[in-house]
């Protein structure tokens, strides 16, 4: 170990002479004898880093623009819906907004799902592609961390962000409607069930879109390819399946309609709110029993999750 070395780093300008010199002592290399928290710390670190990457924190301004733009836009939708309902109720009397069918909690994800898909398509690849393209994954896998730990932590961080993105506007909507009601406590008493409903429906949408986005990102090192592929998958599947399903009709048409990837979580949303949203209104798949639609949702979430896990378990440096 080296001998402590005096390094002069700054001089005082107050005329106090040598005594006022700022000094730093280079005490050489110090061995670390503090706590080592092993694999759990490593998993937590990957999770935390995933949150920061998703929100662009600790990165340049460009990395922050898109995530915050989407979060802002979704929040504005929630706030706008609350503002519209409050205004109508104030002008035309309590309950008017509901009576005229103004969009509310059950309709929010139908309106916002396209933004959620685009957000997932843009942010998801950011979490996985650069690590493999830049070779950083090599440094992860030589630490007390397996490929499974890495992908589970990254998935967890992305789903956390997706949940925030899905729930925040609904919370704002609920808060706005409650505060705007004549008697907020009564409104909350009558509508509190909407809270677990929008939490459940939001979770369904967040887990589904987040998992598929990460699966796509798991197979390319280029973020742009992953984003374009995912957006393409969702935008193409909607008109293609809708048009063909209408053409074919019958059970075959209903099954074809099930492959409309945008609608898969929306059927779950409909089941939770016991209503039909604007995006699923004309979908032949909506005629299936709820258990079929929910099972279909789980199939489309669990299989991509399994494939993603399998991909990273087999990943070698």
């Amino acid at each position, binding site marked *: *170990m*080296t001998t402590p070395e005096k390094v002069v780093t700054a001089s005082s300008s107050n005329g106090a002479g040598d005594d006022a010199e700022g000094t730093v002592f*280079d005490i*050489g*290399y*110090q*061995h*670390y004898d*503090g*706590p*080592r*928290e*092993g*694999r759990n*710390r*490593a998993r*937590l*670190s*990957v999770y935390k*880093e995933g949150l920061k990457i998703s929100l662009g924190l*600790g*990165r*340049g301004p460009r*990395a922050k623009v898109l995530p915050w733009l989407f979060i802002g836009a979704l929040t504005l939708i929630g706030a706008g819906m609350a503002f519209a309902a409050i205004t109508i109720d104030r002008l035309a009397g309590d309950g008017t907004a509901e009576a005229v069918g103004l969009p509310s909690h059950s309709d929010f994800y139908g309106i916002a799902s396209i933004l959620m898909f685009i957000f997932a398509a843009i942010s998801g690849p950011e979490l996985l592609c*650069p*690590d493999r393209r*830049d*070779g*950083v994954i*090599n*440094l*992860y*896998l*030589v*630490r*007390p*961390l*397996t490929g499974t730990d890495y992908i589970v932590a990254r998935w967890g961080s992305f789903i956390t962000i997706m949940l925030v993105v899905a729930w925040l506007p609904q919370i704002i909507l609920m808060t706005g409607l409650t505060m705007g009601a004549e008697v907020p406590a009564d409104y909350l008493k009558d509508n509190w069930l909407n809270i677990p409903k929008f939490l459940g429906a939001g979770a369904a949408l967040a887990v589904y879109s987040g998992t598929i986005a990460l699966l796509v990102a798991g197979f390319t090192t280029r973020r742009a390819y992953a984003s374009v592929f995912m957006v393409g998958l969702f935008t193409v599947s909607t008109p293609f399946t809708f048009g063909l399903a209408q053409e074919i009709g019958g059970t075959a048409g209903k099954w074809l309609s099930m492959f409309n990837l945008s609608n898969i979580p929306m059927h779950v949303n409909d089941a939770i709110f016991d209503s039909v949203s604007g995006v699923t209104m004309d979908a032949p798949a909506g005629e299936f029993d709820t258990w079929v639609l929910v099972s279909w949702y789980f199939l489309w979430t669990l299989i991509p999750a399994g494939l993603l896990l399998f991909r990273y378990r087999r990943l*070698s*440096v």
Partner: protein
Amino acid sequence: MESLLSVENLTKQYKGVVALNNVSFEISDGITGILGENGAGKSTTIKIVLGLLEATSGTAKILGETASENINIRSRLGYMPEHDCLPTNVTAAEFLTHMAELSGLPPSHARSRAADTLRHVGLFEERYRSMGGYSTGMKQRVKLAQTLVHDPAIVLLDEPTAGLDPAGREEMLDLVRKTHREFGISILFSSHLMADVERTCDRIIVLRGGKLVQSGEVKSFTEETETVYIVVDTNKDGFIGALEKRGVDVTEGDGGIYVEGSDESVYDHVRDALVDAEAPLRRMGPRRRALTELFEREGDDFSDLPEGVR
């Protein structure tokens, strides 16, 4: 001396291709070079030691553990890959803090270790700059720093001088030496550049085509020869003529001359020739073999190299 790394009868086959063939060696405290051409099995050995690849047969233990069975042991290891492995859009300080946490250090300790380690590799002033703007030499230093940030017991460096210019290469070799001599961290240094290994390592392991060819102390490979190297200040030609007149075989090179000194009488001839030519002597001494020279001389067959100590 206690073994930090031991490899016993290690074999690795990839779909009929033998990457490692029954390799055994041990590494103790110090800097050990693992030398071989591309495809000799150096990286495969390192990856098996780190638990990233399964061996077809044999065992590889580091710090007394098999890394694939106990991955927590990796929190005491450092690994510097040969290829790029740095993100471009984060600062070195941020990146190193994350790497320290990945090795199990709590965040507050990770932050201070990151700053200290960047100071040790000479990047303290640049620590808040995005790594995308770093030069190749700076990137290599960050790569080395991330192996040290969690204070490992041993680091495995895969071609650490790859892609560096001569000045950068020299700086990196200095850092590698400093890592052991000042920081007390043992090193396994993989390279295909014999000069780097010779100048940096205490011991070497030579792999060729997946087989262990030699292992031993570098000094046993670069022992003194019977050739005497002489440098005179002036009248070199007169001195050479005086030596040849006395029947001494002379070879010119490296700014001086070489004479064979197996017979002690050659020193008398050198003395007399210096007097005759009135050539002031600047330097005279036995010449050490360079590792590169030995390998060149033996060509494709390493079997005549001095037997090293296992």
